């Protein structure tokens, strides 16, 4: 690479916009642009955003891309025709699943299963079996594998095959053998083997994960190829990374090998950004609230790390990959407020971008949270999206009046406040759940607000929950793309190895960790990281003998099995409220490998001693005095480090509005972040 190649580029495809952002390591400057999303040919929106930002691709040292392509393929059922090869006698595991229905359907006597991605005719069992120790009980019938592949490809027309055998998490030999046979016979058919994606037990979940991977692989591959060649034509010749569902990024090449790892990466950028910014500014414990048009995503960051789970679902189907543990609720700006008899409800239906809130004047008739915000005076109708769109405030008020206030015999202001109260109650409930289920107290966290509607809503949420401060980062509406620039390269490696701790020596655990470390280091050095730039994090998943659930135990620097046992008991106590006398058992060993990237610094400025002047005033509803009052209006660009503003106030930014109330104060910290504190609802 030549000397001047110092620019990092990130492009995030969202539902409405493609956000491009660049960071120049030499000049330390950041720039941002938006283009429209182009669902039919996603790469053109990406290329347009890059074009708009005016970056020279020859000068780019790394490109980080966030895409929801895989997700959309599943949501719209546009993936590959997929088949399954598995053990004889178990071809129905994928259909039988775990036999339960989700909570929302628990009383539904007419319940229907969601449509399967793999019809029964495309699932074939072949002889061959391993036992729970991974030992071969019956050799793989290679002939049967050939026949299965031929049936699936020739007769059933599949483009992708998922291979999953019982106990392959222990011993992948049969899966690898079968994959080789299939690849040799049908090199054009993409093959996903379960043990290459996850080495954890539970055959249905592992099969489903492999199926999801096979299902999106052909589309993903051709998209990445098209994009890569279009970029190359413009001189791009640098590492190409794709964001990962469970944090960090992986190379485009690895992503095409196992695209399932990208499938839930949509909200990942914001969380990477939040954890990085949090670490840099001394806030290791954060609740992030990303509120956009259709929904609100909340996640807990503890000790600088966003919560990750290993058992997520997509379209009712399990995914056994690490995914950020995000609680999504229908409380976005576009969420519809409605009456159920005389109860006032908000969401989960959303007016989306089209027709959008009534105030958008695009034909929406159902009042939304955004309309309530307009009626309460938080959004300046003449200055929405930096003046790009004029809002129909009267229309919003009329709709609220007609649909909600009149039937309830209430006023537009009172019922709009009610819409906020209900949206708040929904959100408070969800956040209490994601904290309390981990044994955490939400009041010990700071909140970070981003997304278009977050900065308007989260200060109220913090008041409601007794959270001390809300952090509004710079450029909150493109925070997700910003976060991608901060992403490290991350790979997870795991082994399921179920054994009583008492049967293990420390060296047993260490040797598995060493194997995993070697695998991790090999992978990252192949991608150009030197060992100094690599961090390895060890964890154990453990439980008491007889339990099903495991807890994750930090296993960095373990000194003895007694040490492991202590760590496990402490963790169990924290999480479940008690320790037990039963013997502890190790279930999984995990290594997370992190290749560290150079990140944009948070620019630091010395505080100035000047109080900013409001540019305007607005009449708006203050939750601290339960009435309309006069809010000062500021431009965010006028708020320099050190500035302090007492509520009630509105701070304008081109793509978002920050609102806080008369019992709250905002200060600007040395990094330009707005910190809102004060204001607790009386108990």
């Amino acid at each position: 690479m030549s000397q001047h190649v110092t620019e990092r580029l990130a492009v995030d495809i969202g539902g409405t916009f493609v956000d491009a952002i660049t960071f120049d390591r030499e000049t330390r400057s950041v720039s941002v642009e938006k283009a429209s999303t182009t669902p039919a040919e996603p790469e053109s929106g990406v290329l347009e955003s890059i074009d708009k930002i005016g970056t020279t691709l020859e000068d780019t040292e790394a490109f980080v891309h966030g895409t929801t392509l895989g997700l959309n393929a599943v949501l719209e059922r546009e993936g590959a025709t997929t088949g399954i090869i598995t053990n004889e006698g178990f071809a129905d595991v994928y259909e039988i699943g775990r036999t339960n229905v989700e909570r929302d359907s628990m009383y539904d006597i007419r319940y229907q299963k969601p449509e399967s991605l793999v019809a029964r005719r495309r699932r074939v069992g072949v002889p061959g079996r391993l036992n729970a120790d991974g030992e071969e009980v019956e050799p793989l019938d290679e002939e049967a594998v050939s026949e299965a592949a031929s049936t699936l490809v020739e007769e059933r027309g599949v483009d992708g095959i998922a291979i999953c055998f019982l106990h392959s998490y222990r011993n992948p030999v049969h899966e690898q053998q079968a994959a080789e046979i299939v690849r040799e016979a049908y090199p054009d058919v993409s093959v996903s083997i379960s043990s290459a994606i996850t080495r954890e037990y539970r055959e249905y979940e592992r099969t489903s994960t492999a199926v999801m991977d096979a299902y999106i692989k052909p589309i993903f591959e051709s998209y990445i190829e098209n994009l890569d060649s279009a970029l190359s034509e413009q001189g791009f010749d640098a590492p190409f990374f794709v964001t990962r569902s469970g944090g960090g990024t992986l190379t485009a090449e690895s992503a095409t090998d196992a695209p399932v790892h990208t499938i839930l990466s949509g909200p990942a950028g914001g969380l990477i950004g939040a954890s990085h910014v949090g670490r840099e500014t001394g806030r290791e414990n954060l609740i992030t609230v990303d509120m956009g048009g259709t929904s609100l995503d909340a996640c807990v960051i503890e000790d600088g790390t966003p919560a990750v789970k290993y058992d997520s679902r997509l379209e009712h189907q399990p995914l056994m990959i690490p995914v950020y543990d995000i609680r999504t609720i229908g409380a976005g700006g576009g969420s519809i407020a409605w009456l159920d008899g005389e109860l006032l409800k908000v969401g989960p239906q959303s007016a989306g971008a089209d027709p959008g809130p009534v105030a958008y004047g695009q034909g929406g008739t159902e009042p939304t949270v955004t309309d309530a915000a307009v009626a309460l005076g938080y959004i300046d109708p003449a200055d929405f999206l930096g003046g790009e769109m004029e809002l129909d405030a009267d229309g919003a008020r009329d709709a609220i009046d007609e649909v909600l206030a009149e039937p309830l015999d209430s006023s537009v202001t009172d019922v709009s406040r009610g819409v906020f109260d209900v949206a708040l109650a929904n959100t408070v409930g969800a956040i209490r759940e994601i904290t309390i289920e981990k044994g955490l107290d939400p009041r010990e966290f700071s909140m970070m607000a981003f997304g278009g509607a977050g900065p308007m809503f989260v200060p109220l949420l913090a008041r409601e929950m007794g959270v001390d401060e809300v952090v509004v980062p710079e450029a909150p509406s493109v925070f997700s793309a910003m976060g991608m620039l901060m992403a490290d390269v991350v790979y997870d490696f795991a082994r399921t190895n179920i054994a009583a701790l008492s049967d293990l020596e420390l060296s047993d655990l260490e040797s598995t960790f060493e194997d995993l470390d070697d695998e991790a280091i090999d992978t990252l050095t192949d991608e150009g990281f030197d060992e100094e730039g690599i961090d390895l994090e060890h964890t154990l998943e453990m439980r008491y003998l007889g339990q099903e659930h495991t807890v994750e135990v930090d296993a960095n620097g373990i000194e003895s099995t007694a040490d492991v046992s202590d760590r496990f008991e402490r963790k169990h106590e924290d999480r479940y409220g008690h320790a037990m006398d039963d013997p502890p058992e190790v279930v999984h060993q995990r290594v997370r490998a992190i290749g560290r990237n150079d990140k944009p610094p948070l620019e630091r400025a010395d505080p100035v001693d000047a109080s900013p002047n409001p540019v305007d005033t607005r009449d708006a509803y203050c939750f601290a005095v339960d009435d309309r009052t006069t809010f000062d209006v500021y431009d965010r660009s006028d708020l320099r480090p050190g500035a302090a503003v007492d509520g009630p106030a509105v701070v304008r930014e081109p793509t978002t509005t920050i609102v806080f109330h008369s019992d709250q104060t905002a200060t600007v910290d040395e990094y330009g972040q707005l910190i809102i504190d004060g204001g607790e609802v009386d108990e």
Partner: protein
Amino acid sequence: MSNATDEIDAATVEVVRNYLTSAATEMQRTLIRTAYNTIIYEILDFGISLYDRDRNLIADSPGLALFLGANDYALEKVVEHVGEENMNPGDVILMNYPYWSSTHTLDVGVFAPIFREGPEVPREENELIGYAATRAHWLDLGAKDEGYVLDSTDVHQEGMIFPGTKVHKGGEPDEEILDLIRFNSRIPDKVLGDLNAQIAAIRTGKERLQELHGKYGGDTVERCIERIQDHGERTARDAVRDLPDGTWSAVDYADGTTGDGIRIEVEVTIDGEEFHVDFSGSSDQVDEPLNIPRGMTETVCKLCFKSLTTPEETSNAGQYAPLSLHAPEGNLFNASYPAPTFTIWTGIVSVDVVFKALAKAMPERIPASSGGDLNDVMLFGEDPDTGRQFVEANNDAVGWGATDEHDGANAIMHITETMVQNIPVEVFENKAPISFDELSLRQDSGGAGEQRGGLGLRRDFRIEHPVGALSIIQKTREPGWGIDGGEPGDKNGIVLDLHDDADERVDVLVDNTDLYDDDELWVGMFRGTFHEGELISNRTGGGGGYGDPYDRDPEAVREDVIDGYVSREAAREEYGVAITADGDIDREETDRLRSESGS
């Protein structure tokens, strides 16, 4: 908002409703988080509820669908027995007397009155604002057998009884009561751990209700609750009014523990906004642990009623206002002392009988019968690798009934416990000395119909080391039913493949070989010790079909044959559709077959 004076605004009502619902959810998370036994935190064998001071249900969060409202009847009995005037802040009360608690002795109810202030404020200066209740399955409490009691003839063989006994008084644990529990259980540590988990869950509910009262004031909370109840009642009444009026009845038979059959008859009457269920025609109570206490009969009715009226809403008492039931004292569904009540499987079967009656009234709303059972196989013994005692139970799914609009779902857990998962093959093989030969859908097990019933499944347990095993299953002899010309699905059954010397080891309680003309040993309930190489093949029932099978679109039959849900033979015999070896429809032959039937 907090100082609202006259009319309560709609938003406050919704905020309070949401608060109560999430309080119940938090209680559930606390219980799962702190429970010691897998039956609670994996199988979700618990019920959780919050009440106002008049004992109206204001929120719940059941683990088993069948436990919705299961604490309602029990709370009434607790208050009756202890006396409201004797309840003090900080009290926690145990109750598991089956005729009051609704289920069996091992489902222990833990109840607490909630006062506005804690136990430091004496009752006279305090104010009762509600109750919190949990019930959860304990592993062992003074019953004659470990695990499940399958042959009790009176309740005193089934365990130790607390009739409404304070285990905490004024916030302090009563060590004497705890000792009683400790000395009456084979697994005291886990049992006491689970008791503490239930108390922790109750504390969560208590604190949340106190916070709510503190925040809005008792008056506002009460008026909101009133509005929530009114809304629930209005929604349910509107839904019942939409249903046809009339009286319909249905009969079915549970196996019993001998296979002789226990009559379950249900009569449902809908009259305007009222919904009444009568169990008078059912058998008298029996000398087998299959009797249903009155409280459980209420939950059977609530589950059926809810699925028709407010399936998507969390429960409150108002929603059940239109519902009433009758079961005479001493009836199978109103067991009286000392009738044994250890398994609730007749209650499971009765849910389908209620739907069977309703299907006569409103076939467009009700599916044909499901496989209709929980198909439980339990393994216990010593793990040869670790030397530890283990108990592993798995409930298997059944085919669901077809509806007027679609085929029944394949292999879904019975409606009474829809949230319960099966145990994965890989997990099971790691936990017990068995391996599975097969886990598959049973071809042709779904009842034929214009809409086809869902398929049941087959799970083959191969024993690898001597192990104890039993089954709890109650619907292996009577078939299910179709609707409007649809056929019933295959019955539930278990096939045992045993060595010649097995007679002394394996006690077949319900022998079904008379029902099948193959050479296999078909059984229902059994209990015994199994040896290496023997096989337990659990085969679950299919759902019933809907409409005449000859009206099924031949293309749909062809698709079913390609997918193997239906065999070519069955396509021909039951649907009158001829499918060639290449998977095409033989139109001519199909026309001939379908016209021959004369339908």
